[in-house]
Structure formats: C-alpha cells, structure tokens
C-alpha cells in the first residue's frame, strides 16, 4: 500500500487549486456538542456504575475503534494511495477533520468504560495465568497509543495544515501520507490482537 502512495506524489500545483483546501476546517466545531454529550453519558455511566451503559460504551466504542482502524488501515488507506492527486486531496480534506474528533472520543469511551467494567465484573481480580490476558491487552493498547499519538496523529494534523496553505508542499504531503498509511496499517493489525484478547477474556 505504501508503494501506491510513493508512486503518486502530490504535485503542489495540483493541490493549490483545490477548492476544498481553502475551506478546510481542521476541527469540525459542529461535532463538539456530540462529543460533549457522549462524554457526559460516559461520566454518568461511570459515576452511577450502570452496568448496561458501561458494557454498551465499551463494546460499541471498542467495536467502532477496532473496525474503523482496520477499515482505514487496510481498505481506505490503500485506496487513497491509488487515487488521482485532486481526488486524494478532496477526500483527505473532508475525511481527516472528522477523524480528529471521532478517534480520540472512541478511544476514551472504550478505555474508561472498560476499566470500570473490568472492576465491576471482577475481571481485574482474576489470578494468573488468566491475568496475563489483561496484561497483554494493556501492552497492546500501550504500544498502539505510542504509535498512534506519536506518529499517526502528528502526520494526520501536519497534512491538514499543509493542505490549508496557498501552495502546499506536495513532496511533504506525500511523505506524511506514507507515514499515515503505514502506521494506520500497523495499528489496524494490532487491533486484530485486541479482538483475540477481548473475546478470550469475555469467554474465560
């Protein structure tokens, strides 16, 4: 997939003329009330120890997080790499800002509800060797966090700000998009490990 990105570097002239880049909003402000409502629901579920709500937030949030990561890393990423330059810019300028809001929200509702749920269900108190499954999930999530926050998200934001410039640097965008596609693919594969661990924990 990175090969495809490499084959089609963004030409500055092609990028500069795009109408969508001029209107680009890095954070879609209209989405913030939805994020606030979801977080308020999360706080209420934790404070009230609502088992159904915690289960819902963990399963729905985790499912969406995993699904989106896999879909973007293994399906959308390679497709973007093979798109024409103007189509790639058009798609990225509309897609990336939404990801800036959606992914951190999904991550926090999954992690916070999961921690509380595991306390309520007694999963945290499970002795070894089964406890290793929990530790394995912490390690996979930790490594994913470092990759996503240290490499993927900076590349995502840098591309967005580059697209906002009157004459974006096509070479830089190409380099950052390669990093984005690689890291999205790696975190997508690590999500498969999370699926195995979580289904194992749910059925022990």
């Amino acid at each position, binding site marked *: 997939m990175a090969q495809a990105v490499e084959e089609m570097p963004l030409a500055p002239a092609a990028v500069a003329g795009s109408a969508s880049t001029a209107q680009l909003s890095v954070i879609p402000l209209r989405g913030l009330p939805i994020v606030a409502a979801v977080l308020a629901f999360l706080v209420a579920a934790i404070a009230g120890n609502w088992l159904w709500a915690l289960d819902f937030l963990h399963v729905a949030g985790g499912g969406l997080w995993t699904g989106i990561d896999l879909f973007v890393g293994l399906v959308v990423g390679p497709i973007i790499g093979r798109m024409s330059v103007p189509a790639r810019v058009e798609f990225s300028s509309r897609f990336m800002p939404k990801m800036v809001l959606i992914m951190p929200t999904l991550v926090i509702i999954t992690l916070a509800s999961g921690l509380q749920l595991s306390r309520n269900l007694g999963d945290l108190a499970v002795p070894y060797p089964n406890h290793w499954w*929990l*530790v394995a999930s912490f390690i996979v999530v*930790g490594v994913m966090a*470092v990759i996503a926050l240290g*490499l993927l998200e*900076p590349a995502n934001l840098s591309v967005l700000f580059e697209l906002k410039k009157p004459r974006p640097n096509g070479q830089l965008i190409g380099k950052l998009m390669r990093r984005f596609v690689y890291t999205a693919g790696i975190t997508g594969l690590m999500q498969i490990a999370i699926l195995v661990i979580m289904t194992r924990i749910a059925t022990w």
Partner: protein
Amino acid sequence: MVSDTSRALPPVTQTAVASMAFVIAGGIYLAAYLPHQPEVVLPSVLISVGAVLLLVAGSMLLRLRNFAWDRFFQVSGWALVAYLVIAGLIEFVLLVDQTRGPLLTLMTIVLTVFAIDIPIVLGFSVARYQELPSSSPI
C-alpha cells in the same frame, strides 16, 4: 517567507514520544497490579525517566527562536484541552474506584505527563512545517 521543511530542529518529537513510552510502560506495570497496590520501585523509575524526558523536550522547545509559535500554541492548545479531558476521565475512574496511596499518586503523574506530552508532539509536528517570516538560525 521561508518553508521550514529543510531546517534542522532539535529532536523534540522523538524525546516527547520516548517520554510517552516510558510513562505508558510505568502505567501498564501499575495497571497490571490493579486492584491491588503494586511494588512501586520499577514504575517509579520508568515514570521518573518519562518526566525527565518531558522536561528535556520542553527545554529544547523553549530554546527555539525562529519558530511558528502561533501555530504551535493553536494546535497544542486544542490538544491540551482534549487530552486534559481524556486524562481527567481516567483519573475520575480511578477516584470512583477508591484508588488511593502511591498507586493514585503515580497514576496521576502518568496521566499528567501523558496529557502534556501529546500537545507538545502535535504542536511541534505541525509548527515545524509552517512558513516563517525570515530564515534566521534557530
């Protein structure tokens, strides 16, 4: 106006990401012991190294002269708000679950370093590619 892409900048991102990796490793060690109180020497060392690396990244950042500070603060400001909310929610879960003592102290430090590391990484990553009014040295 000059593009910043060819300018040599100190390894702020790498240092802040290393800091993040150390505190996350310490946090994983602590979380592996929940709901019991863990042995705190190893996680304390990991978290201390992470905190020192954060200070190093911060000092390297503060020594930059010709830098797109407006863009840095724009990005890192939003990121700080977001990650303070995220860290605050995890701290809230720990408090609701009656986590106390050295475990709570260490987890609070982990979350604080984490919530400061990410805005630095994001802000620096974006600002380093912004155009500057002149091409004077760092």
